[in-house]
C-alpha cells in the first residue's frame, strides 16, 4: 500500500523534477537579474559610492526619465523607434526578395545559403569593428569606390552619415534571420495553390500578391516582431562602430543605458532605463507568442 503511494507521488512529481534544472537556471539567469535591476532602479546608486550608501528613492528615476529631465532619454526612445521601423521594413523587403530568389531552383543553392547566413555568424561587436574599417575615411574600401566614381570621399561615421551607416550595418546583420524565416514560410506554401491561381487568371505578380503574401502573413508578422526586438536591443555593433556618437546621433536606448551607467556612473538611472528596455522587449515578445498562438 505504501509502495503504491510512493509510486503515485513519484508519478505526479516526476514532470516537475525533470523540468526543474531548466526552470532553476532560467530563474537564476533571467528572473533574478531582472528583479535586481528593478531593485537598483529604485535607488540613487552611483558608481564610486559604496553600495551601502544607496538610498531608496521610489520611482524618482522613472519620473526623471519620463518627464524629460534626463534630456537624452526621450530622443533615444524616438531614435530607437526610428531605427526599429527602418530595420524592420528594410530587412522584411530585402529578406523577402532574397527568400523568393532562394525559393526558386537555383544552382549552388547551398553555397549561397552559407554566404547568406554568414553575417549571423559574426559576433555583433566584431561586425561593428569590421564595418568601421570598411567605412574608414582614409583607408576604407567603401571610400575607395566612392572616390573612384564620384571623385570625393564621404565621412561615413560623421554627423551627417553616422545614422545611415549604422542602419546599413544593422540591416546587413539582420537580413539573414529575416530571409531564413521567410524562406521557411515560402517553402511551406503549397505550390499547387500558386498553380491554381495562375489557371484562375492570375499573372505572376497577382499570384504573389493575392495568394503567396496572404499565406505568408503569419511569418511576416512573427519575423517583423523578432526583427523589432533585435533592433531595439542592439548594442554591440553601435558600441564598436560609433559608440553612440557623434554626439548622440546614434544613441539608441541601449546606448543611453550604457552611457548613463558607465559614462556618467548613474547606475540607478541606467537601471531604470534598462527596465524600460526590458518592458518594451517583453511586450514585443508577448506579441510574437500571441501571433503564434493565434496561428495554432
Amino acid at each position, binding site marked *: 500500500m505504501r509502495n503504491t503511494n510512493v509510486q503515485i507521488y513519484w508519478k505526479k512529481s516526476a514532470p516537475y523534477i525533470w523540468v526543474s534544472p531548466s526552470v532553476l537556471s532560467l530563474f537564476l539567469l533571467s528572473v533574478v537579474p531582472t528583479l535586481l535591476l528593478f531593485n537598483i532602479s529604485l535607488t540613487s546608486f552611483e558608481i564610486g559610492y559604496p553600495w551601502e550608501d544607496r538610498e531608496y528613492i521610489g520611482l524618482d528615476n522613472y519620473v526623471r526619465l519620463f518627464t524629460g529631465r534626463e534630456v537624452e532619454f526621450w530622443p533615444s526612445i524616438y531614435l530607437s523607434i526610428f531605427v526599429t521601423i527602418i530595420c524592420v521594413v528594410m530587412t522584411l523587403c530585402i529578406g523577402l526578395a532574397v527568400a523568393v530568389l532562394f525559393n526558386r531552383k537555383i544552382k549552388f543553392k547551398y553555397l549561397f545559403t552559407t554566404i547568406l547566413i554568414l553575417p549571423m555568424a559574426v559576433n555583433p561587436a566584431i561586425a561593428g569593428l569590421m564595418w568601421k574599417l570598411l567605412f574608414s575615411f582614409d583607408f576604407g574600401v567603401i571610400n575607395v569606390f566612392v572616390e573612384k566614381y564620384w571623385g570625393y570621399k564621404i565621412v561615413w561615421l560623421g554627423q551627417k552619415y553616422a545614422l545611415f551607416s549604422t542602419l546599413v550595418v544593422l540591416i546587413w546583420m539582420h537580413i539573414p534571420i529575416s530571409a531564413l524565416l521567410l524562406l521557411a514560410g515560402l517553402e511551406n506554401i503549397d505550390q499547387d*495553390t500558386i*498553380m*491554381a*491561381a495562375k*489557371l*484562375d487568371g*492570375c*499573372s505572376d505578380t*497577382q499570384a504573389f500578391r493575392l495568394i503567396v503574401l496572404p499565406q505568408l502573413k503569419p511569418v511576416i508578422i512573427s519575423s517583423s516582431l523578432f526583427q523589432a526586438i533585435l533592433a531595439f536591443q542592439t548594442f554591440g555593433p553601435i558600441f564598436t562602430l560609433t559608440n553612440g556618437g557623434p554626439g548622440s546621433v546614434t544613441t539608441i536606448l541601449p546606448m543611453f543605458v550604457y552611457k548613463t551607467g558607465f559614462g556618467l556612473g548613474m547606475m540607478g538611472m541606467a537601471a531604470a532605463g534598462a527596465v524600460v528596455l526590458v518592458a518594451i522587449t517583453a511586450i514585443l515578445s508577448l506579441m510574437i507568442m500571441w501571433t503564434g498562438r493565434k496561428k495554432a
Partner: protein
Amino acid sequence: MIVMAGVRIRGLHKTYNRTEAVCGIDIDIADGEFVVLVGPSGCGKSSTLRMIAGLEEITKGEIFIDDRLVNHVQPKDRDIAMVFQNYALYPHMTARENMSFGLRMRRYAKDEIKTRVTEAARFLNIAELLDRRPGQLSGGERQRVAMGRAIVREPSVCLFDEPLSNLDAKLRVKMRTEIKRLHHKVKTTSLYVTHDQVEAMTLAERIVIMNAGRIEQVGTPDEIYLHPKTKFVAGFIGSPAMNFLHCRLAKEGGGLTISLTGGGPSLPVPTVRTGRYSPHLGKDLVFGIRPEHITQRPDHGGAKADFVEIDIKIDVVEPLGMDTLLYFSIGDTEVCARVSPDVAREPGEIMLLKAEMNQMHLIDPDTGTVL
C-alpha cells in the same frame, strides 16, 4: 453557355535532367469527351496533364486546344480549370471566395458571380459550407469546393490530377459517382489522371494507358478490358491482375494446344482462334487468362469445348463477399481464380475449376504484344 473544345496532342516530349518522362505521345480528345489517363506512378501522366495546363514547359511537341496551338500561351489564357490531388484551395479564403476567385480575376459582374457560385454550390451540396475556410472542411468537402471552383468558370477543358487519391475508400467511391454525374450535366471536355484502374474503368468514355512515358493503348473501357493490345495493359487493367503462364504452342490432332512450360495440363485452343495463332506454332509464348475466367460454373454461354477442366489444390482463400478469390499453383506459377462464395472450399482441398478458353490471350514475350 459552355464553350467546349477538343484537345489535340502531337509528339509531346518532356525531359527532366536528361530523363525522358514523356516520350512523344499523341492524344485526341473530342469536344465534351471524358478521357482518363491511367498508368503506374512515374509513367508521365501528370507531366502530360501539367503541360496541357501550361504549368510545365513542353520539351518538344504540340498541344492544340480547340485547334489553337497553345504551346506558348499562358495558363491563364488557356481557358482551362484544374482539380488538384491535394485540392490546392486558397487557405486564407472562404469556400465562396475560393470558388469565385477565378471569376473575380476575369472581372465578371457581381450578380453573375453570385448566381454561378450559388448554383454550383447547390449542385455539389456545399451551399451551407460556403462561408467556411478550407481548414474547417473535411477532405470530401474540400474536394467538392475544388470541383466547384473548376466548374463555376465554365472552362472549355477541365483537368483532374488524381483528385480522389487523398480520400478514404468509401468517400472515393461516392465522389467518383459525383464526378460522373457532374460530367453528364456540364459535358465539359475532361482529362482525368489516375493510377487507379477502377476509377479509369468507371469514369472514362475512353482510356489512355501510359507506361514509361509512352501510350500503350487507347480505347473504351470495354476494348481495354476485353482486347488488351499489350501484356502491360492486360496485366494493369483488372483486379486481381491477369494470370500469366509461360507456354509453347503445339499441334495436336486437327487443332492447337497450349503446353504450359512450367508444368500443368495441356489446354486446347478454341477452333475460332486456330488461324490467328498458327503462325506462332512451336514458339515460346505467354498464356494469359483473367481470374474471373477461371471459375467453377461457367455460365457465360459459349460452346462446351471452350471450357477446360483443371484440377487444383487450393492454397489461399480470400473471401470478398460477392466473390471469393482462390489462389493455387499450376506447375511453378501461382494462379488466381474468382469463384462464387457458395462453391469455395478450404485451403488444402482439391477442386475442379473450368478455364474459359475463348477469353484467353496469347502474348509474344519478346515484343509484349497480344497476338
